[in-house]
Structure formats: C-alpha cells, structure tokens
C-alpha cells in the first residue's frame, strides 16, 4: 500500500487526515511543520505528500521546493492544503512544484476523492 506523508501544524486537522488515510489502508507518516516534514520525507520515500501552507519553521511552499530538489521526490505528487480565498497561494504552490491542492474546509470524502485523483 502507498505511503502518504501528512504535514500540518494543526493537530486536529492532521489527526483527521491521518485517521482517514489509515482507515483507507494507507501507510501514513505525519509531521507538524515543514522542517519536520522534510526530515520525514528524507527518512522514507512517500508516494504522496499532503501539506498545509502556513506552518512554523518551514512553510508548505518552501517544503515543496525542497522536496522537488530531492531525487526521490522529482515526480511524487504533492498536494497543498489551501483556503478558498488564496488563489495566489495556489499559483505560488504550483510555481514551487506542487501537483495540486485541496481546498479547506474539506471532509474525509473530499480528501479521499482527491487522493484517488493522484494515487489512482
């Protein structure tokens, strides 16, 4: 089963994401900020990264940029969590190398359908 890395500084959102993905049978790694996310990503290659944008230590955009610089993550789907109003952020994320985005607020169903879109 695919391994998914979930990065979010909000424990509750992370909990929901992690719980939903585990229920769906994925292996899940989690991290509370971009820097920790990058470390986790280096320790084990994930098949998908889902990351929040606004986080302490390292934001999601920088994380995407860093990940794309790693050989293991050249083609890995990376989804950013963004709020509906941040069209600017979507573009900034894309420019950094993000695959796509998931608009907050989202529910487990929406999360799963988005995951299917990138993991098939």
């Amino acid at each position: 089963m695919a391994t998914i890395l979930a990065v979010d500084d909000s424990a509750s959102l992370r909990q929901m994401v992690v719980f939903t993905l585990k229920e769906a049978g994925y292996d899940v790694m989690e991290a509370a900020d971009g820097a920790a996310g990058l470390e986790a990503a280096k320790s084990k290659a994930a098949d998908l990264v889902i990351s929040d944008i606004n986080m302490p230590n390292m934001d999601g955009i920088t994380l995407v940029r860093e990940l794309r610089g790693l050989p293991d993550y050249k083609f890995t789907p990376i989804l950013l969590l963004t709020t509906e109003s941040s069209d600017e952020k979507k573009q900034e994320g894309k420019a950094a190398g993000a695959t796509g985005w998931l608009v907050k607020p989202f529910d487990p169903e929406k999360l799963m359908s988005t995951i299917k879109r990138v993991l098939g």
Partner: protein
Amino acid sequence: MTIDISQFVQAFLDESFEGLDLMEVELLREQALDSEQVNAIFRAAHSIKGSAGTFGFAAVSEFTHGAETLLDEVRDGKREMTAEIRGLMLEAVDRIREMLLAARAGGAHHAAGGPATAARIETMLASAHGCPDDKSQPAQRTAVATEPAAPIPTDASTDAPDTRPWEIVFVPEPALLRSGNDPMRIFSWLGELGDLTVECVTRTLPPLGALAPEDCQLQWRLALPGTVDEAAIREAFEWVEDQCSLTLGRVGDAAAAQPDEVPATAPAHTPAPQSAGTAERPVGSNGAPVERRADAASIRVATEKVDTLVNMVGELVITQAMINTIGHSADELDARAVDHLRQGLALLERNTRELQEAVLSVRMLPINFVFSRFPRVVRDLSTQLGKRVNLKIIGEDTELDKGLIEKLVDPLTHLVRNAIDHGIESPERRRAAGKPETGTLVLRAGHEGGNILIEITDDGAGLNRERILEKARSQGMPVPEQPSDRDIWQLIFAPGFSTAETVTDVSGRGVGMDVVRRNIEAVNGRLDIDSKPGEGTRLTVRLPLTLAILDGMSVRVGEEVYILPLTAILESLKPTPDQLHSVSGRGRVVRLRGDYIPLVPLHHVFNVPATYERPEDGIVVVVESSEDRAALFVDELIAQHQVVIKSLETNYRKVPGVSGATIMGDGRVAMILDVDSLTRLQDTVH
C-alpha cells in the same frame, strides 16, 4: 467510507484555545512585534479558521476570516500593527474564545458581541492602509475565488443543452511530470466522467536520441460524450492548466484545433511573481527567535490514557514494595541469595522510580498554562482601576501536574486580582508615599524540596494590621490577645472577611480568601501570607508535585498502620510525664517549649485497640494544619515512604479524619490521615 469527524472536535478545541492563548500573549507584548511574532499570530488565526470550517463551526470560521485578513495585511506590511489593531485583535480573540466555549458546552457557537466586533474589523479593513505600499493590490477580501479565465471561448450561444461530443486537445509542456502530475491519472479521472477515448499524438516525438525521459513530449486528443459537464472536465485539468495548452470544444467547432498545429510552447514555466512582502522568513542567525516550546516538542495525550499509566505505575510501586518486604525478612535464604535478591531489588527500585518519574512527567505541564493568562488580567484590571502595574513572571517553565494546574487557575486568579485591587495603590498614593507610580507584581514559580512554590508578591501598601483587627472585632470574630502578625493574617482567611472599603466588582464580594485557601488545601497545598506595611505583601502557595503520590510517614496504632503526610509533620517526640497536662474542657495537652498542644490519641479517634495507653510509652507526632496544631499519640513510627493515593470516596465513602488510602508493601491497606480534619476532630473525642 464514512468517517465521523466529531471525534476530532476535542483536539480542534484544545488546539484552538492554545492558539488563542498564543495570540493573546503575543498581542500583549509591550514591545513592537517582529515579523515572526506577527506571523505566529496570523498562523494561529489562520489555523483556527481552516479547522473550524472543517469541523463544522462555520460561524467561527467566518468570524475568524476577518481577523485573519487584517493580520495578513499586517504580515504583508500593508498595515502597521497599531495599538488599535492590537486591541481589536484581542477583542476578536475573546469573541472566538466565547464562541468555542459555547461550542464546547454543546450550545450554538455564537458570541454575544460577535457581530459588533466583526463590524469593527470590517470598518478597519475598509479603512486606508496604515502604511503606503503602491505595489500591493487591493486586499482580496472576498472569500470567493475567482475562476481563472478560461483560455478557450465557450459555446455560450446555444439555448438548448448542447450534446455534441466533447473534443479535447491536451498539449502538456515538457516539465509537467516534474510537478507530480501525470497525464494518465488525468485520463483515468476523465474516464470516470464518461466514456473516454484517448488518442496519443506521437508525431511530435523527437528522434530517439533526443528523447528526454523526464520530459513529457507526447500530446493527446481526447473525446468525451457531450452530456459530460464542462466544469467537471475543466476540474480534471485544474492542476495543470498553467502547464499545458488545452483546447476544449464540441465536435464541429472551429476551436477544436489539430494537435500538431498547436505550438508546443505552452505558457513558459515562469515562476509566479514573488510578492515583495513575502520574502524568505527571517531565519535567526545568531539572534535566532526563541522557539516556542509548544510548537514542535509537545505531544497531546488523552488524559484517561495517562491516568491509566499512572495507576499502573502505582501498582508497580506497590508490587516492588511487597517484594522488598519479603527480601528484608527472608532470613532463611542463604546469605548469598539474599544478597542477590537485594541487588535485584535495588535495581527494581531504581527502575521503578525512574519509570514513575517519566510517566508522571507526561502529566506535567509548565505553569505558564496558568501564568499566561495574567498579563491580560493585569492589563484589564489595572486599566479599569486606574492603577499602573508592571507584571513580572519568573519561572513560568516550572512544571506541575495537569490536575493541579487546572485547580490552581481560580485561586491564583483571585490572588492576582486581590493584589491589584487591594495591594497596589493608585499612582497618586504611591507618589505620595515616595514610591514609583507604577507598582510591581511578581509571579514566581519554582521548586522547594519536593514542593512547588508559587509566590505572588506586590510592592503595594501591605496588609493593614489595625484595619484587619478592627474589622474582625466588628464582625464578632475571636481575636487573640496581643496578636502576632501571623495571627492577624490568619484572620483574613475567615469566611466572609473583607477589608475593602468599597466593594468593587473586582473583589470584595464575599468570595474571599477562605475560599482561595480551601481550594489550595483541597489539593494538599498551603497558602501563607507575609506582609509589611508600606512595602507590600507576599502570598506563598506550596503545592505537592503531583496529586497521585504522597510523601508520607507510616505510624502504628495497635495492629493498624496509618500514613501521615510528611508536609504536615512538625516533629515527633517521646513525651515525658511532666510534659503532659490535663486542661479542663480541652482534654489533655502536651507542653512543648511553652506552647500547649492538644493531645489527640489516634486509637480514640478511630476506636481501635492500642499497644500503649499512656502517651509517655508511645510517641507523639506534632502535626500542623492550616488552622491549628495537634499532637497525635501513636504507638510507634514505622518508616517514611512514598505512597500511592487511592481515593476512599471513590471506592467506599468519605470518612472523617481520613483523606485516602494506600496499599502497603505487605499488602495491607493503610489509611492516609487528613490532618486538617484531625485537628478539628480533637474537640469531639475525649
């Protein structure tokens, strides 16, 4: 798959309250905020907004949106963090907290002042920016995302639904794969919308030698039934529209171009313009910002789980004690075996203690959880009373039991409010007294032996002996002859006592020091007062490190063993007959350095047979409660140990004179004595 998201609501509330506390702390800073502090405030608001929407608190999300937008403008340098904005944000913090508290209580998540605050934020947002920034576009305040303009003209002229099949020409730019997107996945997504036909255009492929495996050099022509919704098709390409040339049209439209005629120079992969304000976050070089400890280094553990662990370790401690007892009494074993057994036991004891400490530490929280609310309390209250107060907080990292922390909030808040209300004088009076106009209030936490010490010190007027005495007499309270300071300070702990000349809405409403002291004693703590007229008052709260374990002294009465909390014991002695006196109406007393202390024979209190009937044959333990002292007469002292407290009320019922029970090393149950009620009981047993 359905997932019940309500199970995450508690975590959401916890983290949101933490976020609000953080916002408050930062907003209350005296100095100007640096960009990292503003960022932290913004992130907290942003997080609350995002999560609130997800967990079904739309009103919270909507309300927070305004605050977040304003903070975003500050963050981007479009506005300055003025005192007005700080005030407004503090107000917003209060409203959000009210909403979440209401939500936690199960009510509708609304705050009474919410609309008014929201309106003020809106007004602020509508006002001109605080600082000029020509490059900044008008702040995007609408929550609605503008759909990116479609690159292709759509067929808008038809009235009847157009059911001609869709024809799609998809020409990705070479770098498409490097954004993690994969045309095959887009196609499989499209395939779920309807019957999809995919035709790969290979004519554009370069010769084999020029193939770049990491580039996407193919083009595709796709067909979908005309009944498929256009928006759904566009959504499938949403993530790649900046990385491809996409032609979407109905069969027969001129717009549907031939794939190989489409120049493969889709929008160049230009990095999005970096907005001036969002350069790299300042990463501290040598002046690195101090990490907030709550950020990464903390975990969230359900209290029940920790409680279970604490109980398990408690059992382990008991088992260890049990084996220890065997080890010490096993004389039948040969010396070597006993030696080994003892070595093993020493190890077990060490391990057990370490495990116990480690597990207890999970329950420990920095006292900052309580202290962090005081800057706000002090600010609000001193403003309200027209006083100037400088608050100093020392030792806020001192950790104590979570259960204790929760029980400390009310008493400490009361003491702080008291210190500002009654302690620190108005600026005029301070000036007249030759003191700086701004008073100082110091909150200090630290360790003292096995205890936590919390001091609340003000440099105010101090307690007024005369006024307290006068008040006590006028309220008909018993006042000792020639009272010492200590006697007088005790008076303010009497129920209903208040010396405030005017009953403010701050304090002096009868919920007095007696309640504060009772709350502190309820967690095995002690409250002491020290005061000098004109110089100020110091209140000292002493607390045990944890609620679960007690340092105790075991004493024997006949067959029974009782535990006395070590903190209550002043001394133990074997009285000589001339130290024992009978006082009419008060029973027997022990004379100790001129003081007469009531003698309380424990075998009378609990009505059990004792080995010794005469105190001079046994031992008396002098204990002190907050109100009085007593000399407990027991048969002998056994040993000092840490005992695990088991609630008697949970397992049996409340027993006078007993605060709990524990299981001794030999498996017997021993009662833990409640010294306070014993000193009160003394009058009823004789």
